[in-house]
């Protein structure tokens, strides 16, 4: 559970720092009248609610993935654990997802430059790359199954399907949002109508890409050392 512990320390520090900046040291019983701590009063526009919502959701999803990682490292200790060879297509998929994420960031820059046409093109390309990634993941599943690495035959295989499946479902949810962004961008006359949603998609994609890199390290055996460290810490 030390993976979880690290994640939790991170979340707790962010929360405590945020609260400290929001004035939990104030003495509200002494202060009366309008106060100047309204975000607008400092001349800063508050971030859109959807962005805050997404950040909170990323904390939840991060929690989910770190718990899965914690379970992965704990289960790994058993003698029956036999890591399957990671299908080679995973490396291709990694490049596809990186491309998809990079294209979204390019779309975000296009939105900042007020260029509607490149924005649409980059959104579609990014969506296509993400769909290709999902297709590639399914291919990896098929390859695993074809070689006889079934979920029931070994916990390592089961974790392979569980981790990639959870990640794919999250990306699929992101694709729904991306489709909406694209739909809105098609009908939009100004980038301001889609600026926020493109921004949110870009953040979400970066998150999923980082999660995927960590997952890839776990599945390809690159993170075995981390498991050993975790066990040392616990033992």
């Amino acid at each position, binding site marked *: *559970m030390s993976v*979880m*512990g690290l994640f*939790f320390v991170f*979340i*707790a520090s962010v*929360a*405590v720092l945020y*609260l400290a900046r*929001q*004035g*939990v*040291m*104030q*003495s*509200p*019983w002494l*202060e*009366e*009248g*309008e*106060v*100047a*701590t*309204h975000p*607008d*009063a*400092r*001349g800063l526009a*508050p*971030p859109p*609610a*959807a962005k*805050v*919502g997404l950040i*909170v*959701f990323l*904390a*939840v999803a991060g*929690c*989910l993935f770190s*718990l*899965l990682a*914690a*379970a992965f490292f*704990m*289960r790994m200790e*058993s*003698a*029956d*654990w036999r890591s399957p060879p990671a299908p080679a297509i995973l490396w291709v998929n990694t490049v596809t997802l990186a491309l998809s994420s990079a294209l979204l960031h390019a779309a975000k820059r296009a939105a900042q430059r007020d260029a509607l046409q490149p924005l649409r093109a980059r959104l579609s390309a990014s969506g296509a790359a993400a769909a290709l990634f999902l297709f590639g993941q399914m291919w990896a599943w098929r390859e695993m199954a074809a070689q006889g690495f079934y*979920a*029931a035959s070994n*916990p390592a295989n*089961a974790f392979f399907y*569980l981790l990639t499946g959870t990640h794919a479902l999250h990306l699929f949810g992101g694709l729904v949002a991306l489709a909406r962004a694209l739909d809105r961008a098609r009908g939009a006359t100004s980038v301001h109508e889609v600026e926020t949603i493109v921004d949110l998609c870009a953040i979400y994609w970066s998150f999923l890409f980082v999660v995927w890199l960590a997952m890839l390290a776990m599945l390809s055996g690159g993170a075995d050392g981390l498991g050993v460290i975790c066990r040392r810490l*616990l*033992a």
Partner: protein
Amino acid sequence: MTDAALEHGAGVPTAEVEELELYHPHGWITKYVFCQDAKYIALQYSGTAIAIGLLALLMSWVIRIQLAFPGAIPFIDANVYYQSVTMHGMIMVVYLLTAIFLGGFGNYLIPLMVGARDMVFPFVNMLSYWVYLLAVIVLAASYFAPGGPTGAGWTLYPPQAILSGTPGREWGIILMLASLALFIIGFTMGGLNYVVTVLQGRTRGMTLMRMPLTVWGIFAAAVMALLAFPGLFVAAVMLLLDRTLGTSFFMPAIVEFGEHSKTQGGSPILFQHLFWFFGHPEVYIVALPAFGMVSDLIATHARKNIFGYRMMVWAIVAIGVLSMIVWGHHMYVSGMDPWFGFFFAVTTLAIAVPTALKVYNWVLTLWRADIHFTTPMLFALGFLVTFVNGGLTGLYLGNVIVDVPLSATMFVVAHFHMVMGVAPILVIFGAIYHWYPKITGRMMDETLGKIHFWITFLGAYAIFFPMHYLGVLGVPRRFYELGETAFVPPSAATLNVVITVMALIVGFAQSIFFLNLFKSLKYGKPAGGNPWRATTLEWQTPETPPGHGNFGPKLPIVYRWAYAYNVPGAPEDYLPQNAPPLTVEHRS
């Protein structure tokens, strides 16, 4: 107020909203079924939670009747007993308490108390309720599935939860796990709303430190729930895969009826870690909203500002953080490294500090206050006593060496019922009596309310106090039948009869509450906008019950904290949060 603050204030956008129309539902379906108004969703959540909670109450009677009169009712066999224990626990903890505190009170009170027109994502909020309802239906469906609901105990520990011989092994466990996964998805949608509304939706002047403690409690609980429920989600999904696909995440090598299982090496302890990573914060997910509401109840009905508001906020945050790192104290007897036990005992006992701080502050708020013994106040005081009681036995169980002999006895049952059963439920009742006038525009009957309080409060003590004694005697929990043992004296059986009779009485007494609830809807005294003369924003709405959009054309502006009671020089003994600052003449 300084000039600088005024100048800054000038930059704040006006609180008017032109598109108030947006908040009006168009048509019957959007008004009464797929409603996006948080207040209506709150009622839907509460109604569903109470309905399924009544089923759980029925289950508790089945348990109690079997314990007092073993075998007296032929229908209650061992399977039914274990199914009842499981469903009672799971429904009460997750589907009633969590849902009613966050989905019910959270939805009703957060937007009103922070001065928002609605939750920030009303559509997601509506979806949250419907997914919750689906989860409840899936859970209830297990009663009609072959083999009935699961009887694995509410902790659903593998391997026994999915082995043959456990009731509900065929469908019950699958439906239970699916229902939990749905509940968590639905809750996450709602939880995002509660958190983001508090962060983003506050009206002008409502700083975090001016929020009523109710909002603080619900906010902290929602954050904790968002972070803790993934633990249960992961555990449920993995157990579901073990059950359906035959994976061995949790399933060790097992010899069952002389046959070796295909699974090997799985770790039941891993499940316990994941489950309790959710399970312990869950206690505080239920307790923190109760803490918050009880603070507001006490301040309002004692006409005094809450003692140590800032400490109360810090204590809520501290409890929230600490409660995420204490889950191991549920696993003292699972066999772990002694240093682990040491660590978890220390963190567990450390929670006593912020918790005790809150109790002191409540008591000091009451000290020399103008206490009105209204029904909500009685329930708040009942909570205070009960929570201290349950908290003290928690100190015993938090110590490893004391926990080991008491583990799996009735002492544990008594402890957690006091601290997270009776105490939060007393707050729920108090809160319903308190906010009912705002929700319906009518007062509840005080006499019936007081009768309800005394029967419930004294009855709950008659039920759970003797259980501590049974636990110390060594009476084990979860046992279908005690039979004859060398160490349990026959008097324990007599005590069991007393407890059961009281449980039946208290259960039936709740009909007084429901009678009051429905009768007052029509015949209750008209309440007016602010019957308790309270300061917080929900009592200052132009209409009662508040209309769509909550505050009419103009959002309120907040000038002070939520506890301005008996301010010297004020015209009345309370100052609403949105009343303009007192003039100099008032102050002199």
